[in-house]
């Protein structure tokens, strides 16, 4: 047994690491470190830097701009980005819409959309969840009715991340009345967000920030050529996408970086005249998280190694990585808030305050917002159901 990366893999890691260190703009790095929200322009700026380097879409086929890296290299790359505190780029275009188009899209669709996803010219969002269709996605009821050479869409999506920045949305709609199985009659459509009849309404979450939206469709005309795959086969497309989830859903590197920040913070904060890191109760809580993360990193590598050797796409493994990864992330944000004690309470200045500590003031809101990670992208309850069903045969 050898738990180490090979010499080639290490060399690759160093190459990525030194590029990130040399290239990542200081201002973006600081904003990420302070838990500040990035503007659309800032996200696009980082996107273009990666695109210029040729590293924006590692998993795509080489002819469309992919890097040709194997799964381990891709893992190393994503982990290095997380560890360096690089801005997290929206995945909807790069790792969701693009794989779908590559698998099911027509040549014309690929040529129309992929280059603009690649160069960051068009931002995408995902129209899946609806008020009545969350964990039970197949219950969706947004309708698309074929009239001539267009679909006319009516209905509502919810929790649509960055819909307010997006140029395009890929969405699931019902193209025929529910007859037999609920999964039938669903289609996968590409919708230009500038189409008349679309209204985007912000949802403010409990950190006070705006990431997600409600999106309303009222007689929205979508050209029939924007259908992906066959009409009524949208569920097949959605399922393919689920199986395409990344192997880094454990977000190990990001958590490692946050853990390092936490240790630094706990060494600086004092309790009874000694650093909080020397306080046994706090240190033990931190250590337990650190050990869980240590274990998850090796688990992740074991799953990755199995995938590389068997060539099988990840199955319920991804569910476990998601559950454990989000639990660890949530615990770290909680410890981070606890580390500063009563100073975590102030979150929003009323007066113009000199020396207002943005980082400390962000800790409690970040803890609150991070509750979402055990809810989104398949709640942790749904992930446990998947493991029970797929792995344990229950």
């Amino acid at each position, binding site marked *: 047994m050898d738990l180490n990366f090979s010499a080639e893999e290490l060399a690759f890691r160093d190459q990525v690491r030194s590029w990130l260190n040399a290239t990542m703009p200081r201002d973006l790095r600081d904003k990420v470190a302070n838990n500040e929200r990035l503007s659309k322009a800032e996200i696009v700026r980082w996107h273009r830097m990666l695109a210029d380097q040729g590293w924006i879409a590692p998993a795509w086929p080489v002819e469309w701009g992919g890097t040709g890296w194997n799964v381990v290299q891709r893992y190393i790359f994503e982990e290095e980005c997380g560890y360096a505190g690089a801005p997290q780029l929206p995945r909807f275009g790069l790792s969701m819409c693009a794989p779908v188009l590559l698998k099911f899209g027509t040549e014309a669709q690929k040529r129309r959309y992929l280059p603009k996803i690649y160069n960051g010219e068009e931002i995408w969002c995902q129209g899946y969840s609806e008020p009545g269709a*969350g*964990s039970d996605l197949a219950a969706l009821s947004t309708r698309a009715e074929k009239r001539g050479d267009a679909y006319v869409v009516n209905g509502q999506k919810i929790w649509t991340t960055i819909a307010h920045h997006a140029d395009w949305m890929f969405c699931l709609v019902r193209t025929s009345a529910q007859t037999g199985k609920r999964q039938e009659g669903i289609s996968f459509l590409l919708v230009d967000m500038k189409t008349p009849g679309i209204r985007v309404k912000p949802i403010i979450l409990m950190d006070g920030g705006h990431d997600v939206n409600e999106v309303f469709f009222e007689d929205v005309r979508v050209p029939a050529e924007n259908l992906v795959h066959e009409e009524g086969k949208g569920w097949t497309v959605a399922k393919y996408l689920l199986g395409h989830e990344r192997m880094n859903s454990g977000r190990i590197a990001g958590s490692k970086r946050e853990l390092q920040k936490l240790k630094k913070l706990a060494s600086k904060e004092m309790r*009874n005249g000694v650093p909080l890191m020397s306080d046994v109760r706090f240190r033990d809580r931190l250590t337990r998280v650190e050990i869980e993360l240590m274990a998850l990193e090796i688990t992740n590598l074991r799953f990755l190694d199995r995938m590389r050797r068997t060539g099988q796409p990840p199955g319920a493994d991804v569910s476990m990585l998601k559950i454990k990864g989000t639990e660890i992330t949530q615990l770290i944000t909680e410890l981070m808030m606890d580390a500063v004690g009563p*100073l975590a309470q102030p979150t929003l200045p009323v007066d113009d305050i000199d020396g207002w500590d943005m980082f400390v003031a962000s800790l409690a809101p970040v803890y609150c917002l991070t509750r979402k990670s055990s809810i989104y992208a398949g709640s942790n309850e749904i992930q446990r159901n998947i493991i029970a069903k797929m792995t344990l045969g229950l």
Partner: protein
Amino acid sequence: MNFDVDDDQQLLDDSIRRLLRKDYDFDARREILRSSAGGSDHVWKTFADMGLLALPIPETYGGFGAGAVKMMGMMECIGEALVVEPYLSTVGLGAQFVSRWGSDAQKQEVLPAIAQGRLKMAFAQIEDGSRYELGHVATTAAKSAAGWVINGEKRVVIDAPASNKLIVSARTSGDIRDAEGLSLFMVNTATPGIRLKRYTTLDGLRAADVTFDNVAVAADALLGTQGTGLVMMREVVDFATALLCAEAVGAIRSANEATLDYIKNRKQFGVAIGSFQVTQHRIVDMVMSYEQVKSMACLACVQADTAVDADERSRIISAAKIRVADACRQVSQDAVQLHGGMGLSDEMKISHTFRRLTMIARQFGDADHHLARFAA
């Protein structure tokens, strides 16, 4: 043994609940949060008219002489409605310091005014590096010809922006963490040399960092005996912690009710999500925690009123706060999880209850702090 509240008490609790359901529902509260003062004069006046501000004020000063037990109903209602008015700061802390150790002149000046709703107070105690330790004080008060001169900076003084008077802990002798040498001063918030940097807290309260720059106060600003500040603070903060436990009872009950309602009505896969066992077991655990917390709040309030031994009182109130902190964490996190995305929305009361429970768990000391005090 008798855990029932008497009829008068029940009548009062019911009328508080009616008032808050009318004047402090979710929308009214949001308006209050958005207002420039971040509090409601109307509600404060109504509290005064109903005698709620006079509850623990001694009868000789226009109050009802109630202890923590008789205030539990009010605190539960505050927790349920997520009231952001400076009730705990004024009545649970400020008035307590004065009624217990104030001179007759100080009592005359302050207590009837509090009872009538004319005076709000805040407790300026936390400092950089103090965490939850009451004895960690670097702020100094030096004797001068005319009285005292206070210098230092207090952090996160909850309700300072609305306050007329501050109770300030300051060192009259000794080193930063000495148990001896602490004294308390009652000062007008508007005294020259006091500067407030105001902000809102995670749970929608108004607070400030308060700087004291050569603040000159008269000799009679000293509260109680010089050098005995720590003992006074322990007693009053224990009392306020017991009240906070009662507030948690109300907030937890409200979170559980909202969650139960949600899982009964939210349908997925053709059925209410409350029909799933994983959901049922989780809310059953939340309800069991509620009962445990209610019991610990009773215990803490009885101790606050009747304890003979200060160490024993502190130990039991710490025990209550530990159980409350654990329940605040469990209930807030599970309530949001069971609400799904809705639980994070600012438009939903549960996200506000989540934030308040998160802060209650830490106010006057987090579980780690009280575990250490309990074991000591």
